[in-house]
C-alpha cells in the first residue's frame, strides 16, 4: 500500500532561501498547516525561519489558510512571503 502524502510548495524568497520549490511529505493524522511548518523548521539551517522568522503566508489547495487549518493526504500546501504584486 502506498503511504499517504501531501505536496508542499514554496514561492519567492522562501523558495530561494530554502533552495526548494516542492516537497512530498508523508501525511499524518490530525495535522495542521502549523504542524507542518514545525516539522519543516526542525530541519534547521534556513528552514528554521519557518517558525518565529518573518511572516509566512499559507495556502491549502490554492486558497488562503491559517496555521490552525487542518491538512490531509492529497492536499497541496504552499508557504510563501506576504504578496507584493500589482
Amino acid at each position, binding site marked *: 500500500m502506498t503511504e499517504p502524502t501531501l505536496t508542499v*510548495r514554496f*514561492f*519567492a*524568497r522562501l*523558495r*530561494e532561501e530554502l533552495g526548494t520549490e516542492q516537497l512530498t511529505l508523508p501525511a499524518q493524522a490530525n495535522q495542521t498547516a502549523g504542524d507542518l511548518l514545525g516539522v519543516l523548521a526542525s530541519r534547521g539551517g534556513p528552514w528554521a525561519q519557518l517558525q518565529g522568522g518573518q511572516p509566512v503566508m499559507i*495556502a491549502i489547495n*490554492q*486558497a*488562503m489558510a491559517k496555521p490552525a487549518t487542518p491538512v490531509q493526504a492529497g492536499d497541496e500546501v*504552499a508557504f*510563501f*512571503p*506576504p*504578496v*507584493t*504584486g*500589482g
Partner: protein
Amino acid sequence: MISIQTEDFDSGAEYEALRASGAGTGAIATFTGLVRDSGDMQGVSGLFLEHYPGMTEQVIAGLVEEASRRWDVRKARVIHRVGKLLLQEQIVFVGVCSAHRGDAFAACEFIMDALKASAPFWKKELSDTGEHWVEQKASDVARGKVWGK
C-alpha cells in the same frame, strides 16, 4: 476575463474591447501600473515577478465576483504580467465597465487594491548592484482592508 502572461499588453485595445460591452455602458474606469524608477533600492533597472499559477487566477476571479456583487459591473478585465519587466514597462491592467461612473471607479479601485493585498504575486527588484525581494507595504495591506466586506 483574467490573463496572467509574460507578454506586454495593448491598453488601447483592451479599452476598445471594454467599450464594446453594449449600449448600457456609460462609464469605463481603467488602471495601469508601470515599473517606476524609485523602488526600495537605488538604481533599479527592472523587476522580476513570480506568481502561484492556478491560485492567482482563482483569487482574482474571486475579487471580480465580489466587485460584481457590490457594484454594477457590466464587464471587467484584469491582466497581470509575470517574469522580467524593465523600467516603464506595464505590469498590471484593471478595466471596468458600468452603467454608472461611481460604480466603475469603485469596482476598478477595489479590484486593484484587493489584488495588491491578496493575489499571490511576488516582486524582486533588479539593479546594477544586485537584486532583492520587495517587502509588502503596510499601506497596501491597509488599502486592501479599507474596502471591508
